Each structure stands twice: as structure tokens, then as C-alpha cells.
């Protein structure tokens, strides 16, 4: 539970700091968006693997940055080839986020059921 509490505090802190930072150019917002999706995917993945005690820090850190970079690269390549590759990237990320959220949900449901017993 501590992980979630601390995470939540950091999210709120990030929002507060973010609202006082200058905005970026609209042209680059597409890349930032895809990087955000990649990072969100990594975070949810990390949370889900924590619940299963399979969490590996090196996998998480590498996934966090490498996925974001690859997603941005795909977006740039797609931009140059006039193919919306970023849609595929977003599809994959959202798909995985849903899967991992399902894993987390099952984990907590299992806990509740156990406690009731």
C-alpha cells in the first residue's frame, strides 16, 4: 500500500509543479504524448509485477526509457513515411496497460477474498 500512497503524493506534487512550468511547442506535444503513454505503460507494468513479486528494477528502468525512446522514434519515422505508426504504439501501450490493470485488480480482489475467509 505504501507504494501507492507515495506514488499518489508524487503524482500530486508533479501536477502542482507542472502547472507552473512553461508549456512546450505544439509540434513536439505529439512526441511527449507518446512518451507519456510508454512511461505509463512501464509504471502500470511495474505495479502489476510488484503485486506478483516479480518486479525487476533493471527491467523496469530500461523499459521506461527504451520504450519511450522507441515510441518517439516510431512516431518520427511514421511522420516521415506518412504512416500513423504512433497509433500502433498507442494501441500496444493501452492494451498492455489494461492487461496489467487487470492483473492488479485480480491481485486485490484475491486479497479481499482471502481476508474475508
Amino acid at each position, binding site marked *: 500500500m*505504501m507504494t501507492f500512497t507515495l506514488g499518489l503524493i508524487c503524482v*500530486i506534487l508533479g501536477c502542482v*509543479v*507542472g*502547472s507552473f*512550468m512553461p508549456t512546450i511547442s505544439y509540434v513536439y*506535444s505529439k512526441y*511527449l504524448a507518446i512518451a507519456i503513454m510508454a512511461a505509463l505503460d512501464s*509504471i502500470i507494468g511495474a505495479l502489476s509485477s510488484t503485486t506478483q513479486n516479480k518486479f525487476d528494477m533493471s527491467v523496469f*528502468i530500461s523499459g521506461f526509457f527504451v520504450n519511450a525512446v522507441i515510441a518517439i522514434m516510431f512516431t518520427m519515422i511514421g511522420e516521415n513515411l506518412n504512416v500513423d505508426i504512433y497509433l500502433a504504439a498507442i494501441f500496444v501501450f493501452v492494451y498492455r496497460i489494461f492487461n496489467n490493470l487487470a492483473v492488479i485488480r485480480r491481485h486485490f480482489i484475491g486479497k479481499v477474498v482471502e481476508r474475508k475467509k
Partner: protein
Amino acid sequence: MNSLEKMKKFNIRKINSTQVIICLICFIISLSVTIQARTINTSESDILRLKRENELRDEIAQWKEVYEVANEKIAEQNKKIEDYRNASAKTDDTVALIKKELDIANLLAGVSAVKGPGITVTLDDSAAIEKIAIDAGYYNNNVYIIHDTDIMSIMNELSVAGAEAFSVNGQRIISTSAIRCVGPLIQINGINLSAPFTITAIGNPDTLVGSLNLRGGIISEIKSAQIDVTIEKHEEVTIPAYDKIIEYKYAVPVVEVDK
């Protein structure tokens, strides 16, 4: 108190490097999400407007093409009709007479191209406009641009001086033509025109030019608004035909029948 102690132990035990990194990353992610959201919210309206403009531009281009193709077809058909008329006029005197009347009617209605001596008046937005705007520190676009009323007044003046036919940037002015202001453009016959505007008029060139150049007349008034006016006399100018369908839905001729 037992539970409080438990909590403290729980806290200290649980905060490890994993959680620190997760927290850091949560912070980074929410920071970038907030920045992104603010970027999108501030620039969305501009981007949408731009997108919409581009879409509309494409649409205009498409419709223009359609319009041109249709116009070509009309011209083709009109030529055929003309050929038939000529052919029948040769064989029949009555038809020849009717054709003569029809030609006059077409001339009056503006559905046939006409040529004759005349003048062209070219109005262009002031070249000094930017300098003026910079000097004044603002851009008062109401004063230094050509208005629909300028064109109307010039044509009115020319009509008084006996001009017989008008066109503005190739748009024939007929009895039902409307000239109106649509933002920075002027709409004539439903078509948007932009500066420079060339008014072509058929009539006695000297009379027409004289009427415009009256002291305190329309031209001096327009020139005082820093608009560039060029007037040229021509031995022969051509005014194109009105290229749309003239339709009277409500007005019907009153026919007096002799009994």
C-alpha cells in the same frame, strides 16, 4: 499504539530503492502529463482553426475544379445553341428578326460578352499601408483598404456619365448583381474577389474619366484614404458575359393585351 508502532516500522521497512524510483517516475510522468495537457489546452483552439482553414481551402479547390468543368460544359452547350440559331436564322427571315431582338435582350441582360471603348479603374490597397501601420503602432484596416462602397460609388459615378456595361475583376455587373463586403474580400455575383480590383466600364472614355476626376469627387475621396488608384483609357475593352443562371422566381412580366 501498538498499531501506530506497527505503522512506523511498516513505513521504514517498506521504503526501499524500488519505491524511491517509482515515486520519482510517478513525479516525472505527472509532470509531463500536466505540461502536455496545458500545452494542448492552450494551443488546441489555434490548431483546430488552422486545420479547419486547411480543410476549407481544400474544399474550395475541389469545388473550383467542379465549377470550372461545369462552366466549360455550359460554354460548349451555349456554342451549340448559337450555332443552331445561326443556322436557322440563315434559312428564315422571321427567325433572323427574332435573333436580332434576342441579341439586344442578351446585351441588356448582360448574358453576352460586350466590347467597346471604355476605361479601367484599378484600385489597390495602399502600398504605404504597412508603413502607416508601423508608424501608428497599430493596423487600422478599416481606413486603408478598399470597401464595397468605394466600388459601388465609382460605378454609380460612371453610370451617371453614361457607362453602359461594367465588370469588376471579370465579374459582369448585371441588374441583380450584389456587391458586398465579406471581411477582407468583396463578394460580387457570389464570388469572393480580393484586391487589386479592376473596374472595367464601356462608354465614352473621356466623359467617364472626367466624371471620376471631378474635384472633390469619388477618386479624390478614395485617394485620401491612401488607396492607389489607376485610371486608364482604352480604345477597346471587353466585358465578359454574366456566367450564371439568371432566375426570376417572383417577378413576372405584366403583359397588356390589346383587345
